[in-house]
């Protein structure tokens, strides 16, 4: 820092100013990003939070009504029905989306042929290129009461034709089984990555100790892929709680309210009835539930292993 002392005070401040101005350019660089994020990512949740405390129709009415929107939820029959549906849907989805891919991953992992391993992996991921909408419409066709695939298959076994999505007792189960056979997308790959990162010596040790497959599975594999299980648990929770695309396209919550879920209820309140304040409150409630459940799942500890 020797020469810094000989520079006179005036030019030193001048250099500071120049450096200061040059440093400002970083903020200019970040400006476009932050303008976009501000308008479309930061502002909406804030506005949604505030909107929950208003009676708001999106046009001329915006009246502060405190916690009325939240009080209204307790008497909202549609919401209560939708929560029941969501609990059933979520339980089923969480169980299937965590266990079935793990079993499939174990099967692939324990295959001896490397080439077969590779191809099963590719084939399980390949359906991701089919747009979600096409998959939805395909399932609509599978469930079609008149010409659908499912009734045709059951017809072979002399099972009478069902009305599936049009039957209030079956519609919700139909939505659950749209993920059949529950191994789609990258879940299997995530588990495989976890299994691959377990060292071969661990498996060898288990073998020498005479562990049978199921013993190894529960004592070694499951504890060691707990990280992946947690990740998938969180992703499925978020996915199932905020998702309502299938309901929106296939059933619109019906017949009756048999497939209504809170997300779709929010959508209806906002875009069909112009109850924007109430819709915001529903969004906020869902958001709080999602955050709480995510937080709780992150708290799950690995079981103690030696």
């Amino acid at each position, binding site marked *: 820092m020797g020469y810094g002392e000989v520079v006179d005070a005036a030019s030193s401040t001048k250099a500071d100013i120049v450096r200061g101005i040059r440093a400002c350019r970083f903020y200019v660089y970040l400006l476009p990003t932050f303008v*976009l994020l501000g308008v479309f990512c930061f502002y909406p949740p804030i506005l949604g939070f505030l909107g929950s405390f208003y009676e708001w129709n999106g046009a001329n009415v915006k009246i502060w009504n405190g916690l009325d929107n939240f009080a209204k939820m307790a008497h909202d029959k549609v919401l209560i029905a939708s929560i029941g549906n969501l609990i059933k849907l979520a339980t089923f989805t969480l169980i299937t989306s965590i266990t079935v891919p793990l079993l499939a991953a174990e099967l692939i992992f324990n295959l001896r042929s490397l080439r077969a391993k590779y191809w099963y992996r590719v084939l399980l991921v390949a359906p991701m290129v089919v747009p979600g*909408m096409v998959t939805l419409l395909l399932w609509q066709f599978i469930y079609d009461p008149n010409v659908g695939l499912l009734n045709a298959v059951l017809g072979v076994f002399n099972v009478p034709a069902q009305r599936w999505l049009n039957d209030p007792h079956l519609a919700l189960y139909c939505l659950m089984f749209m993920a059949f056979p529950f191994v789609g997308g990258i879940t299997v790959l995530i588990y495989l990555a976890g299994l691959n990162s377990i060292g071969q010596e661990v498996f060898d040790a288990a073998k020498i100790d005479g562990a049978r497959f199921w013993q190894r599975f529960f004592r070694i594999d499951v504890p060691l892929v707990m990280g992946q299980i947690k990740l998938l648990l969180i992703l499925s929770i978020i996915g199932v709680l905020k998702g309502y695309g299938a309901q929106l396209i296939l059933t619109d919550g019906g017949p009756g309210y048999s497939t209504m879920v809170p997300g779709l209820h929010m959508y209806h309140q*906002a875009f069909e009835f112009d109850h924007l304040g109430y819709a915001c409150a529903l969004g906020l409630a869902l958001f709080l539930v999602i955050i709480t459940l995510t937080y709780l799942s992150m708290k799950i500890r690995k079981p103690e292993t030696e």
Partner: protein
Amino acid sequence: MRSWGRWRKRLVEALKHVVMGTITGLVFYPFVMLIVVSFKNTDQFMHNPWFVTFPLHFANYPAALELLVRYAANSVFVSGVSCLGTVFLAAFTAYVFARFEFVGRQFLFYLIISLMMVPGILGLVPMFMIVKRLGLLNTYWALILPYIAGGQVLGIFLLRTFFSAIPSDLFDSAEIDGAGDFRTFISVAMPLCKPMMATIAIISFHGTWNDLIWPLVVISDDKLKTITIGLLAFQSRFQSYGVAVTQYGPLFAGYVVAAIPLLALFLCASRYFVEGLTSGALKA
């Protein structure tokens, strides 16, 4: 005894293949059926819906394409612009965060990352109001701007980690040679992170191409509809109620057409995608 043991092993191995084969078959059957039916006319569909029938009716495809081409073009434009915008802006922002020191750098970065924790459901209704107030309803911008904004977050996160791992000497030497900030970014930083950028591009394109609820909310003009919601309009053309029969051939040909761009993208970029996932994302 030994030969029984070997046979048992083979049997178990075969059994695994049977189970996995069945599962993959079940995953694939709907798509096979989709393609099979897309070549049928109504008569063939009524008499033999599940197996290939001859002659194949290739004419279903031009018929479907004619109705879908506008929606597909909209989607290509919207997803393409969003994807390029997301990748470029995310890369530049990530570069600024990784390369330069400035007051509030950590804070601003964590501010962006915190968005990953906020599920979109809270923002849907207000976002609609914002877009409406900006006068963007029924424009491409109602889709593109939120897509770029939302897609950036993950991109910035992944790319910043990537850029931080590159020795800064590389950038310094470019600057000593007289390159400005932008020049260094474009000529030095961008070529290095190609696989990462391709990965983010695919994630972005896949997400926007498939998005359903947001376009449904902000686009009602049939001329501007994206392929996802265009398919609904398309479907209602072929779906008939009462006596008439739904024309499944051209309908399913349309579904196949809607899947082709994503398929093409994955085939082109899968090499980069795999490279990107193994080079940065998983280690991040």
